[in-house]
C-alpha cells in the first residue's frame, strides 16, 4: 500500500475519534456548568486546555462563557479542533484514501459529514445540544462499526486502528493532565461534594462513569480513578488498553511486512511502563510527571511510525 494511504487511514480515524472525544468533553463541560454554574468558567477553561485549544479560543474571545465555548468547540470552522473541522478533515482523508475503503466505511464517513454539515449549519441552542452531541458520537460509532464489519484485516486496517487508539490515548492523557491535581492524595477530602463532581467529570469526559461504577464497589476515590484510567486493561479508553492495542497493531505490521522497525522498540518501552507499574509507584514518582513523559513519548512514537512507514517523504 502507498505510504500516503497509510497516513490517510491513520489520520482519518484519528479525526473521527477526535470529533467524538470533543463531543464528549462538551457534554462533560455542559453538565458541569448546569450543576455548578459558579465553577463553569474554570471548567470550560480546563476543557479548552485539555483539548489544546485555549490559545486559539483566547485569540478570538475575551472571557469564557458556555454558549461561546460550545459554539467554538462544536461548529467553528476556523477552529481546526472543532467537531465540524475534525469531521471535515476525516472526510478529506477518506476521499484521499477512498480506494482503500469499503463502500460501507466511505458512506459512513460521508454521511456523518453530510448530516453534521446540515445540523451544525446554524448556532445550536442549549435545548438541542444533547441530541446533537449524541448524533456526533453515534456517527463516529457507525464508522467504527463499518470498519470492523467490512474491512479486510490487513495493513490498511491496522493503520486505521493505530489512528483510533493513538488519538484515544492522547485524549485520556490530556484529560488526566489537566485534572491531575484533583487526583492527588494531598487534596483527598473524600466524600466532599466538590470532589465528587470533579471526579465524575473526569469519568464522564472519558466515557468511563458506568464502567467505573460496575467495577468498583466503593465511592469515587481518586487513586482508583487514576488507576482505572491509566492501568486497567478492561477499560477501552485507558492508556494501558490503548497501548496494548497499538502494540498489537504494530506487531501485525511487523509480521506482515517481515520487518521490525524502530517504532516497535519504542512502543515496547511505553507498554512496559504500564505493565510493571502500580498506581502507588506512579503517585510516588509524580502523576503529573508521569503523564507529561507519556505525552512526550507518545508524540515521538507517532513521528517514528510516520517515518518508518513513509506516510510522507
Amino acid at each position, binding site marked *: *500500500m*502507498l*505510504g*500516503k*494511504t*497509510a497516513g490517510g487511514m491513520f489520520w482519518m480515524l484519528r479525526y473521527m475519534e477526535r470529533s467524538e472525544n470533543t463531543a464528549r468533553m462538551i457534554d462533560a463541560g455542559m453538565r458541569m456548568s448546569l450543576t455548578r454554574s459558579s465553577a463553569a468558567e474554570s471548567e470550560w477553561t480546563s476543557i479548552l486546555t485539555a483539548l489544546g485549544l485555549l490559545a486559539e479560543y483566547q485569540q478570538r474571545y475575551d472571557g469564557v462563557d458556555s454558549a461561546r465555548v460550545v459554539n467554538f468547540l462544536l461548529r467553528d470552522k476556523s477552529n481546526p479542533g472543532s467537531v465540524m473541522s475534525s469531521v471535515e478533515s476525516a472526510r*478529506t482523508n477518506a*476521499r*484521499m484514501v*477512498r*480506494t482503500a475503503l469499503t*463502500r460501507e466505511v*466511505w*458512506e459512513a464517513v*460521508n*454521511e456523518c459529514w*453530510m448530516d453534521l454539515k446540515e445540523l451544525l449549519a446554524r448556532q445550536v441552542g442549549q435545548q438541542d445540544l444533547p441530541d446533537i452531541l449524541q448524533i456526533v458520537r453515534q456517527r463516529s460509532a457507525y464508522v467504527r462499526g463499518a470498519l470492523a464489519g467490512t474491512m479486510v484485516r490487513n*495493513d490498511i486496517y491496522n*493503520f486505521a486502528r493505530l489512528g483510533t487508539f493513538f488519538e484515544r490515548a492522547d485524549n485520556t492523557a490530556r484529560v488526566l493532565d489537566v485534572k491531575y491535581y484533583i487526583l492527588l492524595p494531598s487534596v483527598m477530602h473524600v466524600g466532599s461534594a466538590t470532589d465528587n463532581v470533579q471526579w465524575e467529570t473526569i469519568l464522564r469526559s472519558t466515557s468511563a462513569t458506568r464502567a467505573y461504577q460496575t467495577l468498583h464497589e466503593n465511592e469515587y476515590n481518586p487513586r482508583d480513578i487514576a488507576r482505572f484510567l491509566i492501568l486497567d486493561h478492561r477499560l477501552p479508553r485507558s492508556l494501558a488498553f490503548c497501548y496494548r492495542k497499538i502494540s498489537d497493531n504494530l506487531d501485525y*505490521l511487523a509480521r506482515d*511486512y517481515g*520487518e521490525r522497525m524502530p517504532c516497535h522498540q519504542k512502543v515496547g518501552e511505553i507498554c512496559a511502563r504500564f505493565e510493571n507499574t502500580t498506581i502507588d509507584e506512579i503517585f510516588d514518582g509524580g502523576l503529573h510527571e508521569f503523564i507529561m513523559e507519556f505525552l512526550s513519548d507518545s508524540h515521538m512514537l507517532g513521528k517514528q511510525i510516520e517515518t518508518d*512507514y*513513509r506516510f510522507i*517523504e
Partner: protein
Amino acid sequence: MTKPRPIFDEMTGFSGQPRKPYEKYSEWFSKEEVAHLRRKSARAESLFRLTGITFNVYGVEEATERLIPFDLVPRIITAREWQTLSRGIEQRVRAINAFLHDIYHRQEIIRAGRVPVEMIANNDAFLPEMIGVSPPGNIYTHIVGTDLVRTGENEFYVLEDNARTPSGVSYMLENRETMLHMFPELFSQNRVRGVSHYPRALRRSLSACRPDMTQGHTVVAVLTPGIHNSAYYEHAFLADQMGAELVEGHDLRVVDGRVAMRTTQGYQPIDVIYRRVDDEYLDPLTFNPDSMLGVPGIMDVYRAGGITIANAPGTGIADDKAIYSYMPEIVEFYTGERPILNNVPTWRCSDPEALSYVLDHLDELVVKEVHGSGGYGMLVGPAASKKELSEFRAKLEAKPSNYIAQPTLSLSTVPILASKGLSPRHVDLRPFALASPNGVEIIPGGLTRVALKKGSLVVNSSQGGGTKDTWVLEDE
C-alpha cells in the same frame, strides 16, 4: 437562414408513436405515476450524494461539490444501430492510433499530401519529444471517448474524438447501478447489455500494453492531480474498481530507471500508469517546469521503455478540432476503407474562403475554439444575441486559425422526466473504446449527456447538462 429541420425524437421518431426499442419502456411508463417517479428521482439524487459521485466546481467557495443531475428515463439503442456505431468507432480508433504512430515517425500522410504540414508543425498539441518514440504495443490512445450525435433514424455524426483523457465513464457505470437498484423490473422486461465489466476490461487492456521489459504481476496505477480536481471522484472510482493504486505526483519518483511509488515498504516500480494529468504537467523536466502534478524524469523512463503511459503523451494531436476536419481522409488513408461514421461538415476558419462564409452565416453556425473543451469559448449562432454575435465576429477576425465552424445540427432528443411528465431534450452520446494489441473493445452503451434546459444544445455538465443511463438492447 435555411428552414429548421424537424427534430428526431428517439422515443417517438417523427411520428409521435413509440419507436420499436422504446415500446416496452413506454408501456411501463404509462402505468407509472409521475409523482412517484419524481420521488424516486429525488431518492436517486441522495444515493449519488452518499456515494460521493460529485464533481468539483472551480472558483466557487461554498458548495464546491456538485452532482451532475441524473435523469431516470433511459436512452435506448437497438442492437443493429449499435453494431454500426461500434464498427465505426473501432475503425476510427484504429485509424487514430495508426495516424499517431505515423505522425511521430515517417509522416507518410503529410508526404502524401492528405494532411497539410502546418496542421502538425504549428500545433501545440504536437509533442516533438514524441518523435521516434514507439510506445509499448504501439498503442497511443488506449482509452477513447467518441462523441456522437444523432439527427435522424439512421443519421449519426461524430462530433469529437476524445483521444487524450476522456472522462465520464464512472457516470456510465453508476447510472446503470442506480437504474438496476431503482427499477429492477425494467431489466427483466428489456434485454439490456451489461456495462459493469468496464473496469476489468480496462485493467486487462492496460495490462496488455505493459512494457516488454516488465515481468510478473502487472502493477497498474492511476495518476490523479488530487482531491481538488473536478474529476477526482472518477479517478478514485476507477482505481478502486480496477484494484489499482491511486497515486499523485508526490507519491512517485524515478528509482533505478523505473517510475516507482512510495509504499509503506519502500519504493515499488509501476508498469502501467493511467494518467489523468495533462501532457503539460506530466514531467517538469520535459514540459512545464513548475508542475507539481507530474513525475520528474518520467519521460526519460518512458522513452527507454520502462513504463507505459496511457494515453500516450502527444495524443492530443489526433483529437484537435482542426485535425478533426481531416478525419475522413485519415480513416481512408490508414484503413483503406470508407469511414463508417460521418464527420460533421466543418469549415476551417484558417482558410480565407471558409472564413468569409462563416462570417456571412454566423447566426446559423456553431463556432468552436480549435483547442477548447467543455463547451467553453463556443458560439451557438442561432441561440446567440446580436451582441454575442458581434463580439464573436471580432474574435474570429482577430485570430481565424483559432476557430472552426459547423452547421447547427438538429440534435435528436430523448425525453426527460420533467415536473409534469415526459419532455424532450437534446442529447449526445459518448461510448468508451479500449485499445490494446489484442484489439479494440467497446463497451455497449456509453454516457448519454442531456441538455436539461429546454431547447438548449449544450450538454456539458459544467453548463447545465445532465446524464442518462444508456441501453444497448440485445439482438431480437
